[in-house]
C-alpha cells in the first residue's frame, strides 16, 4: 500500500501546564523545560510539515501559552502555509497576547472546559481561579472574533453538566463543541475508578448529543467522542495509524499518536536527527501498524478491518498486553466481556480520590486507595 502524506500535525510545544487534570493525555514521564525544542527547531519542523503535505497544525501541550515564543511560533506556522489552531486552557493568555496572536494570523482557538462552573472546573483542573480566568479569556476571544471550539472533557464526575456545556458553547458564540468523553490513556489510566462513566451516563450522553445536533443544526457543530469502554466497536484511532496525522513531542520525538510511547517495543525518531518526511515515510514506528498486514484474528478476516483498523493499538497494549491484538472495545474481541466487566467495576468504584498529573521533573504519584 502506498503511504499518503499526512494532513494534520499535533505539535506538543511543552509539557508544562498550570493545570493538573487527572486525565491529562501527556505521558507519565513529562519532558522538562530544558529538554524542549528551541524556537528555531520548531520553525523548521513547521516548514518541513507543510512541505510534507500537512495542512492543519494543532499547537498543544501541556499548555502552549507556557511557551514565551508562542506568538513567534504561530507567525512561523502561518508563514509556512499551515492552518494554525491553538489548543489551550486559556491560562497564560492575556488580552494583549491574544491581540498579538491575532496579528500573527492564528486561525482558530480550541478552549478546554473542565466543568461548567468554578467548583467543578477548578477541582478537576486542580487550579483555583482557573474557571474565572477562562471565562475572561473566552470573552476576549469573542471580542477579537477568533473562530472558537469549546472542548468539553467529560467523565463520571461532570457528565451531568453536558447540557450546560452545550449551552455555554452557544452563549460564547463558539461554532463548534467537542464533547469528548475521557479516553483512558496516560494519566487517565490512574483514575479509572473516579472517572469511568457508568453505562447509563454514556447512553444518556448519546441521547443528549443526538438531540442537541438536531436542535442546533447550523448554529453549533457537535463532534462527539463517546465513552470508549461502553461501545461495541472501537474508535478509528488517528484515522488509521500512519495515514492521516503525526505528533511531535516537546523533545522532538515523532509519534504516530500521542500515546504511542506506551507501546514498549516501538522506537521513535527525533526531528533533531532526521528530516520529518523520512520519519513519516520510513520510520519504524509509523510502519509498524500501517495498513492491515500486522493484524491477527479476528481483525484479519473482519469486514470492518479498513473501517476502524482494529481500533486503538495503545489500548490493546494497555489492556490485552499485546499491541497487535484487537482493541478489546470491539465486540468481536475475545476480551470484550472482560473489558465490559472492568468498565462496570471502575464505574461503580466508590470513595477514591483523584490522582492529579504532576509537573515536569516531579515524581509520578502512585495511585492511592
Amino acid at each position: 500500500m502506498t503511504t499518503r502524506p499526512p494532513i494534520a500535525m499535533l505539535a506538543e510545544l511543552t509539557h508544562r501546564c498550570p493545570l493538573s487534570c487527572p486525565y491529562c493525555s501527556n505521558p507519565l514521564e513529562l519532558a522538562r523545560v530544558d529538554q524542549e525544542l528551541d524556537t528555531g527547531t520548531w520553525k523548521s519542523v513547521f516548514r518541513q510539515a507543510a512541505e510534507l503535505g500537512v495542512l492543519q497544525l494543532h499547537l498543544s501541550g501541556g499548555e502552549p501559552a507556557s511557551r514565551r515564543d508562542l506568538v513567534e511560533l504561530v507567525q512561523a506556522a502561518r508563514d509556512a502555509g499551515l492552518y494554525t489552531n491553538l489548543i489551550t486552557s486559556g491560562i497564560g493568555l492575556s488580552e494583549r497576547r491574544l491581540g498579538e496572536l491575532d496579528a500573527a494570523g492564528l486561525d482558530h482557538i480550541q478552549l478546554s472546559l473542565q466543568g461548567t462552573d468554578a467548583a467543578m472546573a477548578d477541582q478537576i483542573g486542580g487550579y483555583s481561579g482557573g474557571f474565572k480566568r477562562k471565562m475572561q479569556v473566552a470573552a476576549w476571544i469573542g471580542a477579537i472574533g477568533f473562530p472558537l471550539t469549546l472542548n468539553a472533557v467529560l467523565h463520571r464526575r461532570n457528565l451531568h453538566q453536558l447540557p450546560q456545556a452545550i449551552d455555554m458553547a452557544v452563549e460564547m458564540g463558539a461554532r463548534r463543541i467537542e464533547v469528548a468523553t475521557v479516553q483512558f490513556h496516560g494519566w487517565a489510566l490512574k483514575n479509572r475508578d473516579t472517572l469511568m462513566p457508568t453505562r447509563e451516563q454514556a447512553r444518556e450522553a448519546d441521547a443528549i448529543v443526538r438531540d442537541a445536533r438536531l436542535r442546533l443544526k447550523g448554529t453549533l457543530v457537535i463532534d462527539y467522542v463517546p465513552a470508549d469502554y461502553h461501545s461495541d466497536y472501537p474508535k478509528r484511532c488517528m484515522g488509521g495509524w500512519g495515514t492521516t496525522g503525526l505528533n511531535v513531542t516537546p523533545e522532538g520525538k515523532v509519534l504516530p499518536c500521542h500515546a504511542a510511547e506506551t507501546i514498549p517495543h516501538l522506537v521513535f525518531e527525533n526531528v533533531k536527527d532526521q528530516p520529518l518526511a523520512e520519519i513519516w515515510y520510513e520510520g519504524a514506528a509509523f510502519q509498524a501498524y500501517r495498513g492491515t498486514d500486522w493484524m491477527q484474528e479476528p481483525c484479519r478476516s473482519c469486514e470492518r478491518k479498513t473501517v476502524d483498523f482494529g481500533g486503538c493499538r495503545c489500548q490493546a497494549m494497555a489492556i490485552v498486553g499485546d499491541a497487535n491484538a484487537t482493541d478489546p472495545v470491539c465486540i468481536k474481541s475475545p476480551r470484550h466481556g472482560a473489558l465490559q466487566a472492568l468498565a462496570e467495576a471502575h464505574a461503580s468504584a466508590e470513595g477514591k480520590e483523584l490522582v492529579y498529573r504532576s509537573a515536569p521533573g516531579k515524581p509520578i504519584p502512585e495511585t492511592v486507595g
Partner: protein
Amino acid sequence: MITEQDVPYLPRGVRIHRDTVRDAWVLLAPERAITLDAIAHAILTEIDGARSFGEITAALAARYNAPVEDIAKDSAGFLGALRDRRFLEVQP
C-alpha cells in the same frame, strides 16, 4: 436553504488554500480540510460577501454556458452542507 437574495460569505477561519503537495484546491476550516473539485472551487471563488447567491449562479451559468437552474440546485446543495458545518455564513 439558501435563497437567491442571500449574500453568502466565508467566515473568519475558513479559507481556500492551494495544496501544492497534492496539486489540488482545498477549503481549510477548524479541524477540517475539504478537497474542492473544479465546480466547488468555481462556486467558492465567486463568493465575495457582496454579491447575492442569485447573481453568483447567474455569473456561473453564463461562464459555463449551463442552465442556471442546474447551477443553482447544485450550488445550493454544496453551500447548504457548508452552512450546516458553519463553514459558510450569509450576511444578516
